[in-house]
C-alpha cells in the first residue's frame, strides 16, 4: 500500500494537498479526538503525528505531552508507520514531555502552579521554534483525562490549561490535538468538561464501535465533524464525514460503509 496515498481521514481533515502549496490546514485549529474503551482513538494521534513530522514539511515541530504511554511506545508505533521519532527528537523537531509519572502537588495553589509551569514549558518551546522560523507547530496531548488525574481531578484548572494552550493556536498558528475518552463522562448528567472541549474544538473526530456489534473486518467507525471550513474558492467540502476503519500492523485502512470487498 502506498503510504502517501490520501485516505479518507486525510480527506475529511482537508490534509489532501497534491501541490504542497497550501499551508498546513490544521494550523490555528483545535482537534479533539474522542474515543471509547472498545475503540481506541490512538491511531488518529499516530496518523496526525506522522503527517506533522513527514519529511515533506521540514518546518514542522511537534510538542508531545505524554500522560499515557512512554516514549518507547510511540517510537515503536511510529517506526512501523515509517517515521523515526528518535531521529526527529535529536533534530529538535519532536519535543517529548514525559509526564507519565508526573503528579502535580496536592493543594489548590501548588496544583495550579504545576500546570502553569507546564504551560510555560510549552510556550517556551513554541515561541523559540516560532522565532527559528518553524511556523507549523503541533501540540499533542495524550490523553486529557489522565491530565485531569494528574491535576488531582481539578476540572477547572485543566480547562484553564487547555484555554491557555488554545491562545497559542491563535497567536502562533499552532494546531492543538487532544485525545479524550467519551465514555468516562457518560454517567454524568452535565459532562461540563467534555462539552467545553467540544465547544472549543474546530474539528471533532469520534472513534466508536459499530452500532451493529463486533466485526472481524471492521474495527470501528470514525466520524469527523469539521466545524469551520475555510474555503476561499467556495468549493464545498463534506462537513460531516463518517467511515469505517480497520487498524493494521503498519497502517490503518479507511473505507466507506459497505465498500469493502
Amino acid at each position, binding site marked *: 500500500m502506498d503510504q502517501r496515498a490520501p485516505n479518507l481521514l486525510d480527506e475529511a481533515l482537508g490534509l489532501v494537498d497534491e501541490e504542497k502549496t497550501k499551508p498546513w490546514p490544521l494550523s490555528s485549529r483545535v482537534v479533539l479526538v474522542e474515543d471509547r474503551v472498545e475503540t481506541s482513538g490512538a491511531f488518529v494521534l499516530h496518523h496526525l503525528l506522522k503527517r506533522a513530522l513527514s519529511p515533506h514539511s521540514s518546518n514542522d515541530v511537534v510538542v508531545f505531552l505524554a500522560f499515557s504511554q512512554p516514549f518507547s511506545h510511540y517510537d515503536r508505533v511510529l517506526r512501523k508507520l515509517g517515521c523515526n521519532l528518535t531521529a526527529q527528537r535529536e533534530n529538535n523537531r519532536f519535543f517529548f514531555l514525559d509526564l507519565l509519572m508526573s503528579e502535580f502537588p496536592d493543594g489548590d495553589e501548588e496544583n495550579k502552579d504545576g500546570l502553569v509551569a507546564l504551560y510555560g514549558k510549552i510556550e517556551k518551546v513554541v*515561541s523559540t521554534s516560532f522565532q527559528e522560523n518553524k511556523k507549523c507547530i503541533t501540540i499533542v496531548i495524550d490523553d486529557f483525562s489522565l491530565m485531569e488525574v494528574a491535576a488531582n481531578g481539578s476540572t*477547572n484548572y485543566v480547562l484553564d490549561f487547555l484555554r491557555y494552550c488554545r491562545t497559542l493556536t491563535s497567536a502562533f498558528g499552532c494546531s492543538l490535538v487532544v485525545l479524550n475518552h467519551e465514555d468516562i463522562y457518560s454517567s454524568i448528567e452535565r459532562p461540563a468538561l467534555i462539552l467545553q472541549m467540544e465547544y472549543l474544538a474546530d474539528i471533532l473526530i469520534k472513534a466508536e464501535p459499530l452500532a451493529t456489534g463486533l466485526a472481524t473486518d471492521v474495527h470501528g467507525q470514525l466520524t469527523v465533524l469539521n466545524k469551520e471550513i475555510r474555503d476561499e474558492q467556495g468549493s464545498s467540502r463534506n462537513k460531516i464525514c463518517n467511515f469505517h476503519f480497520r487498524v493494521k500492523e503498519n497502517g490503518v485502512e479507511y473505507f466507506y460503509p459497505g465498500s469493502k470487498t
Partner: protein
Amino acid sequence: MAESICRALRDGALQGEHAPALTIKDSIVSPFGFHVFTHLLTQLSSNILAAKSQSRGLVLVAFSRSPSFYLDLLNRKGIHVASSQKWIEILDCYTDPLGWKDALLASGYGGSLSNEASTGASLCRNVKDMDKLYSSIIELGKGIVGQGKVRFCVAIDSVNEILRHASISSVAGLLSNLRSNDRVSSIFWLSHSDLHEDRVTAVLEYMSSMVASIEPLNQSAYGHRCNWERLPLLKHNFWKGKFHVRFKRRNGRVRVMSEEFYVEQLAINFRSISSEDEIVNRSLLPKVQFNLQLSEKEQFDRAKVVLPFEHQGTGKPIQIYDGRRSLTDGKSEAEPVSTGILQTNENSSKGEIIYLRDSDDERPDSDEDPDDDLDI
C-alpha cells in the same frame, strides 16, 4: 426576527430605564450561538458606523476568541475598524485571563509576549475580579464616547467563561450593573446552556429583555449529547436549526417568534419557517373519515348554493309582495310543491336544493294555524 433583535439593540434604552439585554443561548446539539453572536455584532457595528443607533461605540469583552479574530471578522465584512474615529474597544480576556503569562514572564520563564499585543486591545489579567471587570468595561466605553450623555453598547462573547471563575451571583451582579448603567445603550451576551445548571440559564434569562435560543431542527429524543446513530439525518440538518426569540415587553407581555436558520460559508442566514415543513405537517395529520377542510371546488360549489330564505330572482328584479298585487310567478312555483319537488332548475350551474316529501301524510305548507286545536 433576527432583524427585530438588531433593531432593539440599535434603538437602545429609554431615559431612566434598564438597557435592553439579549441572551443568546445554544447547546452542543446545535452549537451555532457564536454565529448568531457575530451576526449581531456585525449588524450592530455597521449601525454604529452609520450613526443609526443610539450608541456611538461598542465595548467587546472577548473571552472565547482573540481580539485579532474579531478585527479580521469585521474587516472581512467590510466594516473598517481603523476608521478615523475610534468606535470599538476590545477588552481582551482571552489572551491571559488568569495572569499565567504575566507570572511566567515575571519569573523569567516564559517566552516572548505573543503578537496579540499589537492589536491594541486592553488586556484583562484577572477575570475573577468582577468589580475590576465592570470598571474596565465602563472605562473603555467612556473612552470611546467621552463624557456626557452619549451611550455605548456592550457585547460579551461567553458568559460561561466568567461563570467558570466566579459565582452566578457575582456574574448576575456584573450584568445587572452593566444594564442599569446610564451610559450603556444595550447589552448582549452568549451562553452555552448545557454547561451549567438550569437555574444559571434561568437567572441569565430573567435579566434579559430578549432571549434568542438556538435549537436543532429535529429535537433529539435521546438526550442532549450528539447522537451519531441519527447520522444520515444529522449530515443534512446539522447546519440548520430553529431560532426562537422571546421578547419581554415593559408591561410584562411576552412574545415568542420563530425562524429557521442555516449556516453557510461561515455566515448565518435566517428565513421564515419554510412552507415545505407546513406541507409535511399537514400530511402528518391523522387520516379521518370526514373532511376538516374544504377543497377549492367544494368551497366554490358551496358558495353557489342558493339558500331557501334568499330571494331567488332569476335575473329579474326582485319583487316583494306588498299585498296589493298578486305575484306573477306564484302559480308556477305552487305546482312543483304538490308533486313533491320544490324546485327544478334547468340552469345547472346554479346550486339547488332538492326536497322530497317523505309521504302524503306530511301536509304541504299552508296558512292554517298549526296551533288551532289548542284551547287557548
